[in-house]
């Protein structure tokens, strides 16, 4: 038996069963974690498992590596899911989030008249918001998730989250944007010039003049035109944002934390976990990608000692190599111990280093064999 299979067998079979149960029972699974830990791939593998279990599943990806996108048949950004055919009982659908179109749809849905929608969509300030305001991508990912769940075309929606420094950005994004649209400053700008308000408005005007001096008048007039056009739609946006947040904290939604066993990633993951807990949202599973294999049960210290004793010989090199990997494995387990305790009783599933990067459905299936009972 090679050490590699031994490491795999050491994985907790109950954890895999627990993860498979989440896929069977939840309506929404949100994959969260810092950048570069394999979130997108993990989301795709979870969705594939959903389809295997016979569920109608849709995965929303944010920024897949090109070859994974190709594997999922995602040639371009689109706002409607496309179906991936394959040998499973259920259905597998995927879509690559188009932030701007999602935002446009939201405007169209909330506008009181077609003219109002048109005025907003054509505004330059709006185009900047929908393309560049920080948090917009997070907000739209959650909006898309809400829409897909709300339309009831799928049994399970799996969503990948943008690689934000702060995992909660996407939880806070809907409210942050409605706060932005609701801002006191704009209320002042939009208030008709009469009575006591007029004085306030004069101050605002002076303020705007100064801002104009810095960034140019066009920028300010675009903004004013936008807020004028948007007037009356805030409530619709606010209600929708609240409904989205409710769905995220509902029992039908499960948060899966994706991490790698490196110290800085684990630190960030612990921070995410703490924040989620604060928000009353439990982590339902922890998936750790790219675990180094464990070779033997020896103590790295003793192996280092032997490497030193035989330094300069082939045997010394072999011990030095073994010591390296025993050290890494011990460090990884150390890093993970605290995180696993923090998310308990959530199952912890470890995925070993894979031979190659994943760029087709077979590759996703290969990871699936480590994540779910076979």
């Amino acid at each position: 038996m090679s050490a590699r299979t031994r490491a795999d067998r050491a994985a907790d079979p109950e954890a895999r069963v627990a993860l498979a149960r989440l896929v069977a029972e939840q309506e929404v699974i949100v994959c969260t974690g810092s950048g570069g830990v394999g979130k997108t791939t993990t989301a795709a593998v979870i969705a594939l498992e959903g389809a295997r279990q016979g569920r109608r599943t849709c995965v929303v990806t944010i920024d897949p590596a090109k070859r994974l996108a190709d594997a999922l048949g995602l040639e371009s950004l689109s706002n409607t899911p496309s179906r991936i055919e394959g040998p499973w009982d259920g259905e597998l659908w995927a879509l690559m989030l188009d932030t701007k179109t999602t935002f446009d749809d939201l405007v169209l849905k909330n506008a009181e008249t077609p003219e109002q929608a048109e005025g907003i969509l054509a505004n330059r300030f709006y185009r900047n918001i929908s393309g560049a305001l920080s948090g917009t991508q997070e907000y739209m990912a959650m909006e898309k998730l809400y829409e897909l769940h709300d339309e009831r075309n799928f049994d399970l929606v799996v969503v990948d989250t943008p690689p934000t420094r702060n995992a909660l950005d996407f939880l806070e994004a809907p409210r942050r944007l409605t706060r932005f649209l609701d801002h006191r400053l704009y209320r002042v700008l939009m208030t008709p010039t009469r009575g006591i308000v007029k004085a306030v408005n004069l101050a605002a005007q002076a303020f705007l003049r100064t801002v104009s001096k810095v960034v140019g008048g066009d920028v300010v007039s675009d903004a004013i035109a936008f807020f004028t056009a948007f007037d009356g739609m805030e409530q619709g946006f606010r209600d929708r944002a609240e409904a989205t947040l409710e769905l995220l904290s509902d029992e039908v939604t499960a948060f899966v934390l994706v991490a790698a066993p490196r110290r800085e990633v684990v630190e960030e993951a612990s921070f995410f976990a703490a924040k989620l807990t604060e928000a009353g949202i439990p982590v339902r599973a922890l998936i750790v990608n790219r675990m180094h294999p464990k070779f033997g049960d020896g103590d790295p210290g003793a192996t280092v000692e032997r490497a030193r004793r035989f330094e300069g010989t082939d045997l010394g090199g072999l011990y030095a190599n073994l010591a390296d990997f025993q050290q890494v494995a011990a460090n990884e387990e150390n890093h993970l111990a605290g995180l696993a305790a923090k998310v308990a009783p959530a199952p912890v599933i470890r995925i070993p280093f894979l031979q190659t990067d994943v760029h087709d459905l077979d590759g996703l299936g290969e990871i699936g064999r480590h994540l779910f009972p076979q």
Partner: protein
Amino acid sequence: MDPAQFFAASRVVIVAGKGGVGKTTVSAALARAAALAGLSTLIIEVEGKSGLATLFGQPTFDYEQVTLSPGGGPDGAADVSARTLTPDDALVEYLEDHGLSRISRRLVSTGAVDMVATAAPGIKDILILGKVKQIEQKRRFDLIVLDAPASGHAISFLRSARGLLDAVRVGPINAQARDVLDLLTDAERCQVVLVTLPEETPVNELVETAYLLEDEVGVSLGPVVVNGTYASLDGLDADPAAAAEAAGAALRKGEAQILADAAGFRRHRMALQSEQIERLADLLPLPQLSLPYLFDSDLGPAEVDVLAHRLLDGIVGLTELASPT
């Protein structure tokens, strides 16, 4: 190439790469290497929470400049200092410098910065880069190492200057964008060092980022840093039993298999890595500096020094590649 000469080639080095490739570690190692070559160096970080302070065994820092690694000592190194730049702080400072201090706090406290930043995207980036430019021009440091935002953001971050020139055609922001673009496109003042791991996806992203930066920003690219490469060891191909006999040692039961498995794993990873390193060389005609994977993952000042010395060795080895033929 002489390290001092290498680091003196441009006053600002922007370190960029995909999340998880060790951008911050490389920034720290580059800064320390420059300091060891005698250049006083400032690391600027823009995202916060990067763990830079921990790497140097120091408490966290913010907008105020701190010394992360004091110079002097037997190696005659210069200081490594650091500070965090945030758009809000940079804006306040900018407005104060332009005689608008009365409104500056109000702009920040009312959240108007968000509005302005939305109205003209890239404005936050330009405020930060403008501040970097200002620090560069004060010449208080021989070298500035900018730990840039992660890949996708790095491109929009560096592209902000060009974008703003179109969006804001007059006024101080326009002037600021112009100055920043001058800095970015002047090879003697600024270059970008891209960081990757010797793995497929990070290599692909690095190549893509490299071409985008060259074509769309016009910034010049320094050597690529390939982080996390496995160092080779003696005996990886040897049969453990034979190696033990040659060394006059006895192996315990099962030990031969464990040693062979571990050696096989490293050989396999090394083969995959060299495949990617070669692919990177084929796709991108830039010199490479390689940094070892550190098996003891708790990085601190000692490890930063190890990496800094590896960079210095690599830079010395760049002679042939860097000298014009």
